[in-house]
């Protein structure tokens, strides 16, 4: 692509570094910006700068935030004795969407995976242990992903916590709402059977 202006080429290359963006999409995005009014580019540039300058890690839960402590940790209406431990900031968003959870979070920023060289020191586990050691927590919900790395991370945290008066729970595994039994895979269905509950008249 020798016949493309250098700034255009540079923009394409920057876009192509992003996850999910291939060379074609990078070109399309670049030419969109090139043709669009200047203020679109200006706002994008401002947003990018603010993203890096104003987002930091919450000193309590390690979530990404603009204010420290973050809006959840700083909310006195929430139950600070119940901590839900998740792998990624995105997990917080989905759990918050349910509107059911009134406690606070701790974000590990990943899961333990020896093969990828991710050990306890690479995650926010020490921060969690520090929070636990302060003694204000009654329950830890280990909401890591239901795969080997997630389970291992949960098992590691459980074994690292030496305080005895803390309740540790994990999320139930089973059927998705609105799904059909016949489409569930055997593993999920087996877990759902193991974790079955007494039927009550309200139907849940």
């Amino acid at each position, binding site marked *: 692509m020798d016949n493309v202006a250098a700034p255009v080429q540079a923009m394409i290359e920057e876009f192509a570094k992003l996850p999910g963006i291939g060379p074609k999409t990078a070109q399309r995005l670049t030419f969109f910006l090139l043709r669009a009014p200047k203020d679109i580019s200006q706002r994008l540039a401002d947003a990018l700068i603010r993203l890096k300058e104003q987002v930091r890690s919450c000193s309590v839960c390690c979530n990404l935030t603009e204010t420290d402590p973050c809006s959840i940790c700083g909310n006195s209406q929430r139950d600070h004795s119940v901590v839900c431990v998740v792998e990624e900031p995105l997990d917080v968003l989905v759990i918050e969407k349910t509107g059911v959870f009134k406690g606070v979070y701790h974000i590990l920023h990943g899961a*333990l*995976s*020896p*093969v990828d*060289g991710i*050990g*306890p*020191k690479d995650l926010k586990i020490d921060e969690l242990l520090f929070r636990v050691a302060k003694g204000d927590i009654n329950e830890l919900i280990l909401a890591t992903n239901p795969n*080997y*790395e997630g*389970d*291992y991370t949960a*098992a*590691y945290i459980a*074994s690292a916590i030496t305080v005895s008066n803390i309740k540790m729970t994990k999320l139930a595994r089973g059927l998705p709402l609105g799904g059909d039994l016949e489409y569930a895979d*055997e*593993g999920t269905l087996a877990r759902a059977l193991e974790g079955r509950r007494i039927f009550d008249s309200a139907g849940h």
Partner: protein
Amino acid sequence: MYMQRISLLDFRNYSDISLDLGPGCFILAGDNAQGKSNFCEAAAMLSSMRSFRASSERELIRWGSAGGFAKIQASFQRAQDSCGVSIVISETKPAILPQSAAVPLDEQLSAGSARKKVWLNDAPKRALDCVGAVKVILFEPADLDIVSGAPSIRRHFLDVTLCLQSRKYCKNLSQYQRILTQRAALLKRIREGMDSAGSLTYWDEQLALHACAITAERAAFVARCLPYAEEFGWKMGIAALKPEYIPSFLAEDTVHGNQLFLEQLTRLRKREIAQGVNLLGSHRDDLMFLSETISLGVYGSRGQQRIAALALKLAELRVMEDIDGDRPILALDDVLSELDTTRRKALLNHVKNYTQVFLATAEPEALPDDFIQSAVRLRVSQGNIRQW
């Protein structure tokens, strides 16, 4: 079961052929490099959904094919019903390689990936869901390695066979692989002082759970093969032929199996950490072929080893028949060349009443006359198949 009809389009050296088949023995005669093995490969692929020898599925598409895809299509008659299987392998974009004259054109092409689509009775399916819909047992010259080669080849044979039988085994096995990789990496991290030995507890339990299940299934399968293999051995002049599964750990087929495994694992802890390797589990098991008490893998002649490998394959076919109530199709690619006249006759007598047999050979004149007369004779020549 038997194949009623097969069509190959741009598959290996076949540009476009269709064959009507049926129950019985089919002799595929032809010189070297005419397409006998390619036919066997296509037949086996309809069963396992993958080629036993292509390193990239891109190789399966005929050189110079106009459409850029290969197609295998066949209809089968099973014990209860009929069934159609189609596989299409198409080129995706050739890989983007740095443009350099140093890379020959064919390497650039085979580096490009291929896409595979599968239909079962005209409905599109995932390849995994079609594995074993029809069953073709193939014996080809390289299968000698099952007896004479490395233990990993024997474990691979058992895994492929058991995956054909059970989705659960397949799933278990892929999870087991993942546990092994993570655990080995963790052992190395512990050795380097980056993790504590206590982190192993979780992986130990997972390893025990999966290893015990996998080893038990493999051992049970080999035990089922034993009587059939032994019977075939006697016919082929091997006394008391016995395939025997050798687990790398003591396991009882009880609830205590896991506990027992964990105890053995604890004893190995220091060595495992020092070496950074998983030392116990199904991935260290082996399969042994004995004649009376002699190991054929070590002391057997080449002919005996071939017979033992063949015995295991034929036993596999019978065990599948016992499970499904339907006898799989047998494809023998060039097995006769290393057998003497007596054993050749014994083998042909053993298989001639099978539902459907494909027998590829470069020397049809070495077959007994009565066998030739009773079989369907096909001549394979430059990607064409005709009766003779």
